[in-house]
């Protein structure tokens, strides 16, 4: 996500950019090729296990999914490539307009989740970063705590809360507010579940960028005549934007691919693109189509991230 260095940064250099004290007077570093090469070799050595890991567990499955996406389905053997022929029709099938409403719904869920996470997560991250003091680590631990149990279990817990005879209705009923509210099987329930599930992914990068922020910036803004609101908006929020960008990506992308939440908290009208893909590997019996849909979703995300970071990134990162 790091923004590439701008040309400005590279060219105009009357004084070497340096934040370190005393560094300005230092003589320019002369490169020593032999040393550099051994450093490079060391770096390769360090990256070795990572490279193997990524190749095995990221690249290989990706290649397999792409390979599947140009296959032909079968009853016994779910993906075939008869005569080595590539079957591109899965992609036209995946782009069938009948999937469009589901795709739009999925994007809407992910967007709503992201916005909700941002609205809930920002004050949380801000308070922990600014006023957490010695409790910072404890509070962060609490944010991460839900990860200690499976996402599935937590969604079941929400179902237990939201069901017709669940906790929410029981409590509301005992308060005389009626006990027949329909919470599950609604779009709201799905967004709620997603928001609950992905909030930590928003809070952590936000916290990291807010924590890093120089508290002096806020005083500087006050000093320059900026009131509290303006300071928050122009300084606190703006300087945390790298965190916001990271948080938005980390929330939006998994929310876009999620299929567990709509299945557990949603109903018949909350099918998402992710659950449609999932269905293709199960009862839909169409692995090639599911793979093609997955590839398209991935491409959509890649393009989206690229556009997003190149538009927002230049200004922020």
């Amino acid at each position, binding site marked *: 996500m790091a923004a590439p260095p701008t040309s400005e940064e590279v060219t105009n250099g009357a004084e070497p950019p340096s934040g370190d004290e005393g560094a300005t007077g230092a003589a320019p570093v002369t490169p020593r090729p032999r040393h550099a090469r051994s450093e490079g070799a060391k770096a390769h050595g360090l990256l070795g296990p990572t490279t193997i890991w990524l190749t095995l567990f990221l690249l290989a499955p990706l290649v397999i999914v792409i390979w599947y996406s140009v296959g032909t389905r079968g009853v016994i*053997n779910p993906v075939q490539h008869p005569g080595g022929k590539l079957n591109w029709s899965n992609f036209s099938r995946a782009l069938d307009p009948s999937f469009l409403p589901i795709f739009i719904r999925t994007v809407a869920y992910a967007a709503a989740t992201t916005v909700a996470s941002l609205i809930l997560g920002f004050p949380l991250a801000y308070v922990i970063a600014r006023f957490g003091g010695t409790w910072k680590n404890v509070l962060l631990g609490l944010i991460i705590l839900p990860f200690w149990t499976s996402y*599935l279990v937590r969604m079941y817990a929400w179902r237990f809360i939201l069901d*017709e005879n669940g906790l929410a209705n029981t409590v509301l009923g005992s308060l005389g507010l009626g006990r027949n509210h329909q919470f599950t099987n609604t779009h709201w329930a799905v967004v709620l579940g997603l928001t609950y599930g992905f909030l930590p992914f928003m809070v952590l990068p936000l916290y990291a960028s807010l924590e890093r922020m120089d508290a002096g910036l806020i005083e500087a803004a006050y000093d320059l005549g900026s009131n509290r609101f303006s300071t928050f908006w122009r300084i606190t929020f703006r300087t945390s934007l790298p965190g916001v960008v990271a948080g938005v990506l980390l929330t939006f992308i998994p929310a876009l691919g999620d299929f567990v939440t709509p299945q557990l908290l949603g109903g*018949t009208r909350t099918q998402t693109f992710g659950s449609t893909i999932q269905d293709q590997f*199960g009862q*839909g019996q169409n692995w090639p189509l599911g793979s093609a849909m997955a590839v398209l979703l991935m491409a959509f995300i890649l393009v989206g991230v690229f556009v997003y970071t190149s538009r927002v990134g230049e200004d922020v990162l």
Partner: protein
Amino acid sequence: MTEEHDNVRVAFLWDPTSPRWSRRRFLQTMGFMAAAGAAGTSCGGGGGSSGSGPEAKRLNFYNWTDYIAESTIPGFTKATGIKVTYDNYSSNDDLFAKIRQGGTGYDLIVPTDNFVVKMIDGGLLEKLDLSKIPNVKNLDPRFRTAAFDPGNRYSIPWQWGTTGIGYDPDAVGSRVDDWTGFDLPAVKGRSSFLDEARDAFGMAMYALGKDPNSTAAGDIEAARKYLIALKKKVKQITSDYQDPLKSGGLILAQAYSGDVFQVQAENKKVQYVIPKSGAFQWVDSLCIPKGAKHPGNAHKFMNYILEPKVGAALTNYVQYGTPNKAALPFVDKAVKDNPLIMPPADVLAELKFQKPLGEAELKIADAWTSVKTS
């Protein structure tokens, strides 16, 4: 394998009071992940060949979640000295993906009839040596000649049941005896049907008065429309209906017979019914995956479960129907006399098995995708 263990734990977290869980308790997520994982490395295949050298005293048994009596395995070990490693799965898709991939190390699996056919067609099962299973004579003749595996060349039936309706008559406000129960006003938004293509289409075909195994394009289209219309009335399409049925979140659900009886143990109001326009019956059978390392022990287990008292203990526990005719005298009266567990012959005649449809199954799969995404 750990997924399945987690699965069990997940289930118990939510209701520790439940004595046991559905054989079909279906956390699709896990199934999907397992299937996807299996798909990722489709290599290997049946490693060890059978019949070479004496077998170790071990048996790796892969069964549905909580689909066995507490006494079954200890009894087998006691009788034969064979140590059993017992793992669980929760969907046929999951099982099929794993077995197709090969190299699982399992000696004994319990696929449902239509998947038995798929596995036979895929050459994924070892042929049985019936001379080693003398108790096969104890089977009800109808399970010796079943269309999915006539003559028990590949499979020995484990338990059977029907796919009907579980419902709460009080909440529904009347008795339900057919699929039309979904149309009752009280049921609207409080019902579910199975997230299984063939089960759902079979229901639709029965409701429309057609052959549940029909592959005629017109029938599939009619069933698809029926299901899309039904989808608007129900709360969920799910195979995970036991909890809600128990708690009242669902008051009517397309359900597997044994599941409903298990719910009944905790919520007496819930009833099971075999719809009068018809429903599928099914049978899960013991099979030996190709390349199993302990096929001899697997045969011994098959023979063991066909012992009258052993088979009866299993049925008494899981409350599904037993294919073991010799076991009937030892089956609890409440189970034996329950026409919903063991329907009389005339009713049974109307209950069909899911016929393997070959390539036509894909048409139903596509229609199912259309239903799900409509």
